């Protein structure tokens, strides 16, 4: 129910109640007044009649007195006058209209006035004036007056009150409807619309409620809230912008740092063979160099050139890695395909390679060649880390519960993984942070360029996955390659 209607109904009920009570008491009072005045009139008339009846009774006797009363009846049309005996044994004709018990006061020669209803339900005002006959018989002049007039008057009063109440209700409804709409409904609608706008994040429209009432206060409060929210959002946007800019700067710095690392790595990797080549060339060019040294120098130059070519090739594969040609690949198959390639290194280092295949086939969408390259790289690293032999475990499994790191922006929920676990020397914490950096290596010169892991990480990243490393010094390392599981529909 609308607020205005509720208030209107409550107010109207209150008004109607008060007015009804007021009307009731007014009517009651008027009724009493009317009764008093009627009673007084009857008494006056009765007093006059009593004097006359007493005289006639004394001078001419009972018959004449009663006849006089009979005649008086004809003069006073509205009022019925008769003689009664206040005796139980009196003839019916002279019995009072009310039981004699109610007329005890007459014995004390006092006038009695009372209201009584007739058998037909009509009300009468009865007035009894006592008269002592022969010193001992009590009689009375009974004046009865119909109260119909008074009933009419009360009915009229009631009707008038009802009409007034009705008119008041209707006019109040109209007035409160108009004013309620003007003072409550309209500002309420505007407040609601504004609140809804703010709720949807639109802080652009301001709200001005005129008047100094509570709704205007509420409007002002909402307006202040809107301004504060708008300000807060602006501040947040500015902060976000600043954050994005800072991130952008950081990324730029990171790119520069990577470039720096790459350049430093390249300088070291290429600087040394270049140094050897230029030195050997100079030696060959110098006089008095024995023939065998010339040959050896030329051979070394050839070797160094080959070494540089190798570095260049790896660098190219790092920088311009070909587009991955993805297809359905089964991880157990990949594991099996890598094992024969590990054979020579495995034998040399006296390492035992153990395969743990998954029970069910695990399909991923990947470039099989690139995936094999990653697995081979990680497995060879593992073998090389084991100088005193040991066990290299390769495992394929499905990881349902794993959560990707923040750098991997993915909504994939189902991941498959390849584990490469060695019992080698392990990686210290400081190096662990850099193992995926290009040109980072802990191997002897010529043993590795420091690009392998970097390339591996890049490939897996391109496949929507990531590589996780856990390592403890002296106990070994475990590399886990996570790849998004191919969707059910893609399964073969």
């Amino acid at each position, binding site marked *: 129910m609308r607020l205005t209607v509720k208030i209107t109904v409550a107010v109207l009920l209150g008004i109607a109640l008060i007015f009804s009570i007021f009307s009731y008491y007014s009517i009651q009072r008027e009724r009493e007044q009317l009764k008093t005045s009627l009673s007084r009139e009857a008494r006056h008339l009765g007093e006059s009649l009593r004097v006359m009846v007493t005289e006639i009774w004394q001078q001419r006797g009972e018959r004449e007195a009663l006849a006089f009363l009979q005649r008086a009846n004809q003069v006073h049309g509205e009022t019925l006058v008769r003689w009664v005996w206040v005796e139980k044994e009196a003839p019916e004709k002279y019995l009072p209209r009310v039981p004699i018990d109610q007329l005890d006061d007459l014995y004390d020669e006092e006038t009695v006035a009372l209201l009584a209803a007739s058998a037909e339900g009509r009300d009468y005002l009865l007035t009894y004036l006592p008269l002592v006959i022969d010193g001992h018989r009590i009689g009375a002049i009974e004046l009865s007056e119909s109260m119909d007039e008074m009933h009419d008057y009360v009915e009229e009063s009631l009707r008038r009150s009802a009409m007034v109440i009705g008119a008041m209700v209707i006019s109040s409804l109209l007035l409160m409807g108009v004013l309620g709409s003007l003072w409550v409904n309209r500002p309420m609608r505007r407040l609601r619309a504004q609140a809804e706008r703010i709720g949807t994040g639109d802080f652009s429209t301001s709200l001005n409620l005129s008047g100094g009432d509570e709704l205007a206060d509420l409007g002002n409060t909402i307006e202040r809230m809107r301004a504060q929210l708008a300000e807060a959002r602006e501040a947040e946007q500015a902060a976000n912008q600043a954050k994005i800019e800072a991130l952008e700067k950081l990324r730029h710095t990171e790119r520069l740092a990577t470039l720096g690392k790459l350049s430093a790595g390249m300088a070291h990797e290429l600087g*040394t063979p*270049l140094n*050897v080549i*230029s030195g050997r060339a*100079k*030696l060959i060019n110098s006089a008095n160099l024995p023939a065998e040294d010339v040959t050896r120098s030329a051979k070394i130059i050839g070797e160094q050139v080959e070494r540089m070519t190798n570095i260049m090739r790896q660098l190219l594969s790092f920088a311009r890695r070909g587009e991955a040609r993805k297809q359905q690949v089964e991880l157990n198959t990949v594991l099996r395909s890598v094992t024969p390639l590990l054979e020579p290194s495995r034998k040399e280092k006296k390492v035992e390679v153990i395969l743990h295949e998954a029970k069910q086939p695990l399909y991923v969408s990947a470039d099989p060649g690139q995936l094999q390259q990653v697995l081979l790289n990680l497995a060879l690293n593992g073998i090389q880390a084991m100088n005193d032999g040991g066990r290299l475990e390769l495992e394929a499994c499905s990881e349902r519960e794993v959560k990707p790191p923040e750098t991997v922006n993915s909504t994939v929920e189902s991941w498959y993984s390849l584990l490469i676990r060695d019992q080698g020397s392990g990686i210290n914490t400081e190096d662990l942070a850099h193992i995926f950096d290009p040109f980072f290596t802990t191997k002897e010169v010529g043993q590795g360029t420091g690009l392998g892991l970097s390339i591996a990480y890049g490939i897996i990243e391109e496949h929507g996955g990531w590589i996780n490393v856990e390592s403890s010094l002296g106990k070994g390392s475990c590399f886990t390659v996570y790849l998004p599981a191919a969707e059910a529909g893609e399964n073969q």
Partner: protein
Amino acid sequence: MEAVCLDTHPHILLAEDDEALRDLLDFTLTRAGYLVSCCTNGLDLLERLAEGDPFDLVITDLRMPALTGLEVLESQLDNQQSVPFICMTAFGDRKTHEQAELFGAAAIIDKPFDLDEMIELVRTTSLRNPHQAKP
């Protein structure tokens, strides 16, 4: 460069992890008349220095496995009898240079360098060092 044979050959300790460059420097410096001893990493170098052999000059690469040349150089800071160091670096950045200088390197040479330049550097460094003989 002509080989000069003298009774006392200045003794150079050469530390370089790259075999090809080590061979080249060994060959060239020997031809130039120096006595050359080689090591392949920083740890090796530190051990040789600790053995107390009277080396006249150390030529070391800065980036080496086990222990870097810079770390070896730093460890020699408190040594009163320390030999002059010539540092070879492929990281020609200012920071590396400054650090090497701070740790008392006699000279720093960027890779790739000219062999004549290296011989000249060895000669002048040896000259500056009073308790050393010339080749």
